[in-house]
């Protein structure tokens, strides 16, 4: 079959292009600190990387299963507080605290997932919001342990001899490393049997279950993995920023950012959330810098979300990919035509043709 060999050749080329693309992306990310003109730009870079980790973490559940959690700040917040409190209360190594804090958050996510993944669609969204609001109340009022509304100072992992720009740079690379691990995990799941099961759930959960997929367990695992990576993101941010405020940590706004970034970049694609984080993170910081910390970015966020959902429901990355496909080299487009024609000819087999409705 000629089309089959064409396909393999085509996919070989695509793989090579993908590898080159990923290497270029990695090089661009890793060289950013040396190009950053000043510590402020560098700190914006850290914020964007933090968003990228959170959005990629969110996408383990949002992208694979289609369950849109608006309350994922619960897990970044828990990761942050768990890391800080473990260091403060038991004096353990901050990096160990980061990992333990994320694991603890993942454990907490198990019962939350069991309770909330029973409902779908809007109900799930509401339950996710409810959970983050409960956490906000708890962390605000439990003053003696969490610092309450006064906030919590997070001990610095690097000593005072490490200067600010140096701090930013280190945290930039730490975030990049966590992001790389999250992306690798997402990619591994994406191509696996588990991943195809999760995507089947996103497409049609009842159908997936009728085919024998234990949908609830699948969703729960994805949810807990998502909570884990989101918590690592939250913990790392806490170590960098050095201060936690329950109003900000457990806000719906942070959760909405994760959703917006993922939707913008495309929840079906590996790098989608990361690209969305770049766009949203940059815009948010830009607006904050230009207009101060007003409510303006809220309006902008809302507008952006609306535009994307309306005009690019698959996200920016997939929309760009579709556009690129139109400008492919002539050779491959001819091949596409022949392949399509081939399918067409077979299609004209009256049996399946006439059934078109």
């Amino acid at each position, binding site marked *: 079959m000629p*089309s089959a060999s064409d*396909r393999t050749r085509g996919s070989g080329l695509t793989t090579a292009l993908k590898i080159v693309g990923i290497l270029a992306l990695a090089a661009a990310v890793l060289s950013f600190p040396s190009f950053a003109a000043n510590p402020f730009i560098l700190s914006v870079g850290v914020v964007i990387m933090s968003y990228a980790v959170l959005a990629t973490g969110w996408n383990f559940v949002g992208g694979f299963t289609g369950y849109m959690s608006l309350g994922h700040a619960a897990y970044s917040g828990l990761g942050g507080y768990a890391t800080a409190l473990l260091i403060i209360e038991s004096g353990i190594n901050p990096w160990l605290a980061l990992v333990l804090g994320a694991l603890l958050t993942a454990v907490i996510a198990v019962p939350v997932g069991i309770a909330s993944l029973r409902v779908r669609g809007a109900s799930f969204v509401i339950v996710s919001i409810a959970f983050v609001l409960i956490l906000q109340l708890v962390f605000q009022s439990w003053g003696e342990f969490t610092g309450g509304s006064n906030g919590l100072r997070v001990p610095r992992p690097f000593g005072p001899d490490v200067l600010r720009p140096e701090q930013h740079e280190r945290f930039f690379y730490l975030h990049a490393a966590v992001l790389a691990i999250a992306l690798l995990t997402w990619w*591994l*799941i994406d*191509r*696996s*049997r*588990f*991943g*195809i*099961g999760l*995507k*089947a759930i996103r*497409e*049609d959960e*009842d*159908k*997936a*279950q*009728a*085919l*024998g*997929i*234990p*949908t*609830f367990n699948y969703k729960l695992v994805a949810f807990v993995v998502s909570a884990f990576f989101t918590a690592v993101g939250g913990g790392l941010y806490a170590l960098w920023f050095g201060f936690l405020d329950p109003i900000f940590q457990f806000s719906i706004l942070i959760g909405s950012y994760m959703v917006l970034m993922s939707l913008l970049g495309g929840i*079906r694609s590996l790098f989608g959330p990361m690209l969305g984080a770049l766009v949203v993170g940059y815009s948010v910081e830009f607006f904050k810098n230009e207009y101060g910390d007003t409510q303006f970015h809220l309006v902008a966020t809302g507008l952006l979300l609306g535009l994307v959902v309306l005009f690019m429901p698959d996200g920016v990355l997939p929309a760009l990919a579709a556009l690129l496909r139109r400008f492919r080299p002539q050779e491959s487009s001819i091949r596409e035509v022949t392949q399509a024609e*081939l*399918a067409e000819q*077979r299609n004209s*087999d*009256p*049996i*399946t*043709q*006439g*059934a*078109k*409705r």
Partner: protein
Amino acid sequence: MTALHEQGAGQQESVRIGLAATGLSKAFGGVRAVHDATVAFHHGKINALIGPNGSGKTTFFNCVTGMIKPDSGTVTYYGADITGKAPHRIARAGVGRSFQLCRIFPRMTALENVLAAVRPPSKTRLLASAHHHGDVARARELLSRVGIEHLEGAEARALSYGQQKLLELAGVLMADPDTIMLDEPAGGVNPALIERIAGLVRSLNAEGKTFIVVEHNMELVMSLSDHVVVFDRGSQISEGPPSVVQNDPRVLEAYLGV
């Protein structure tokens, strides 16, 4: 008539019951969709489940496959109680099903649609590539068996309705069920495709698969099935070989709505 009866009696001796329901009921508000249904389907046969519109066939399917919890009654599969079990457990016990309004995964390719039904040999193999060599080979084999192998790379939503029905069937087969329940396989497809689907059912049955087919196309039911169950208002009103059921006055009454 006597000859027929004897033939019926002779058959009954060798009949083994696969899927069965006893006193099964399910109401939606005031609507008794399935009401005290007692039904037994024959192992290794092509069973048909017929009845007027709204007689509860689809609801019965949903209760049996765990998609809906019945209000009362029991469902057994080769003697084992499967009432109210989760759909994936019933599927894994060997019951596959299609849906009346053809359900596929629209944004996945035809090949992925079939691969989604793979049952990993163990939990540790869950992270193995979905495009595992053996799985892909089997999925392609099934796609070509239903006659749409040339569409493996196409998104399922791009297929015609008839092709989607064939794809759904290939997915069901991938899970390797012993009993296959089809809800109106001939609904909305042209006569040539109906023949193809009927041919598939026959050959799969010859390979040992038991079928339970809901169908309104009487010509197809009569030519295809070995055993017919007739539903009216949520319960069985007649059963037997097609030739017998066809002449049952209760069936005629139900269909003519006297």
